């Protein structure tokens, strides 16, 4: 059983003043739990080490996919293969940030990789700002969190031009390139997540602007434009696979723009390789029985409880838990039914006294840099709650 600490909840007016407008779920319950998960420094350290090790393994696995042309096998749309290879070849396509979802790590359960949200990770605001504000509001500021996400992002934004660990020469090498930040219209969470990133980039020293995707102009020859101004750097909180499948012309334009070096796009196209749950199978091939991994296959696993999930599913949609005989015990509906599926060995999540399951989300920006939890049923979906933490 994991340990929780009760706090006084942040009031919604305060959250709204921060721009955190998605504080209440459709059933009128708060999205932010008023409890904090209590973890030890050793546990925090273990999350940090595991996440860094996993990232190195992901890089190896992606290299394996590219060398052996396994794009189709892991479900990558063919019209992104060129841009993925192109982005992989050059350091300027720096990975800004991602979020690993891990099981265990608390309550004496081993850390196991569930998946890596490498392309368009959310929960950034909650992890970087909200759980910190909870400590502050409850006069717990003497306590600590595994949370340097905000500062880690400032540094990693600088690395987009310094291209090395040391960022002290940023002012020297930054040549005034303009940085455009983008979401789709009509989703406050996505928009304000992007605006938070824009804010961090501004603090890092960039000239920044925000625009909705449908107001941006793209040209193969000239690059990316908004209000007649050219942007050399572009962040989009829009999944690459959606661009490939829903706007294939845009996929082609972006490929050309990257090839002609008119702009650099974040997160880079190769993060779609990390995002594909097909890579979980490649990881298991390359690192069989690795203690951080769960066995994963494109076929049903023999004789063990397992989770079936779509290669590019999101929000816990179309996930089934299967028993040893591959009979479905529990499942969610969704839009990803027709996707290719992977089968991942089942692992128990840590639970609280009410039987709710907890999953750790650890952000990675050059290194592991911030932890938050989500709690919900056995399958965490978009009704799951964010739970902050405190290190004691």
């Amino acid at each position, binding site marked *: 059983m994991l340990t929780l600490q009760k706090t006084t909840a942040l009031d919604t007016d305060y959250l709204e003043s921060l721009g955190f407008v998605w504080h209440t779920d459709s059933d009128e319950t708060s999205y932010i739990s008023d409890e904090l998960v209590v973890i030890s420094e050793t546990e925090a350290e273990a999350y*940090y080490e595991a996440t860094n090790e996993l990232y190195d393994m992901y890089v190896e696995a992606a290299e394996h996919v590219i060398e052996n042309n396994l794009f189709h096998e892991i479900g990558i749309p063919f019209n992104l293969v060129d841009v993925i290879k192109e982005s992989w070849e050059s350091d300027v396509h720096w990975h800004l940030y991602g979020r690993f979802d891990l099981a265990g790590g608390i309550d004496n359960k081993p850390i196991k990789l569930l998946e890596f949200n490498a392309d368009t990770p959310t929960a950034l605001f909650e992890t970087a700002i909200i759980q910190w504000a909870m400590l502050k509001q409850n006069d717990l500021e003497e306590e600590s969190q595994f949370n340097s996400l*905000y500062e880690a992002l400032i540094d990693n934004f600088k690395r987009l031009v310094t291209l090395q660990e040391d960022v002290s020469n940023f002012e020297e090498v930054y040549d005034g390139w303009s940085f455009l930040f983008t979401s789709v219209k009509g*989703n406050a969470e996505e928009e304000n997540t992007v605006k938070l990133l824009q804010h961090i980039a501004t603090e890092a020293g960039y000239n920044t602007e925000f625009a909705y995707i*449908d107001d941006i102009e793209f040209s193969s020859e000239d690059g990316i434009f908004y209000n007649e101004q050219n942007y050399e750097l572009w962040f989009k909180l829009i999944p690459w696979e959606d661009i490939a499948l*829903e706007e294939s012309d845009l996929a082609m334009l972006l490929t050309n723009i990257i090839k002609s070096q008119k702009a650099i796009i974040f997160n880079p196209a190769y993060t779609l390789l990390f995002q594909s749950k097909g890579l979980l199978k490649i990881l298991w091939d390359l690192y069989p029985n690795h203690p951080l991994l769960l066995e994963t296959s494109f076929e049903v696993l023999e004789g063990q409880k397992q989770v079936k999930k779509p290669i590019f599913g999101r929000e816990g949609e179309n996930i089934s838990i299967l028993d040893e005989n591959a009979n479905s015990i529990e499942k969610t509906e969704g*839009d990803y039914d027709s996707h290719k599926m992977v089968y991942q060995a089942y692992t128990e999540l840590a639970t609280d006294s009410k039987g709710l399951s907890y999953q750790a989300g650890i952000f990675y920006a050059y290194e592991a840099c911030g932890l938050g939890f989500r709690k919900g049923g056995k399958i965490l979906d*978009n009704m799951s709650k964010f739970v902050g933490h405190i290190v004691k």
Partner: protein
Amino acid sequence: MKYIKKFSTIATATGLGALLATGMTGCGDNNQPQQEQAQAKGATVIIEETEPGKYKILDESPADETTIVLKKLDGTKQILTKSEMDALVKEEAAKVDNGTSELTKANPAASGGMGLGGTIMASMAGAMLGSYIGNKLFGNQNYQNNRKASYKSPSTYSKSKKSFSQPRKSTSSKRSGFFGGNKKSSSSRSSGRSSYGG
């Protein structure tokens, strides 16, 4: 450990609240006038019948619409209609699925070319028309080899490849309006929360 920090400095120092407050949005309505959808990208393909039932790609260039011109053995020309193209692509897709397509064979028996469906699929236009099977093909080395073989001369292949990877001069104007109002967003979701990253 340096990653566990006291956070008394960050948010107060950054003026985050002010910035985000000005940028705050509701779960707004999204009834922007829809920008005109851009034309689908296609290709003009000239296919030549080299012997009865065997075809090669003679030339291919980017265009806004896909047109396939068939030069038959008897010298007559035929322009394939959209439904004819779709039918041929669909037929070939079924063959790809059951493994009988020449496209995915290591050594297609015919040196004189493939059947019409296979030849169309080997063209860039085919890859676009049949994008739903494109994934299967593009991961297949035999397909890549056979594509090259389907062009009448190696230079036709490299020219075609080049003209498709080059920016199109004819339409050098900028394009916009992507995901204009069509993007699946959380407005369709119960919670109003993001559809990403979960």
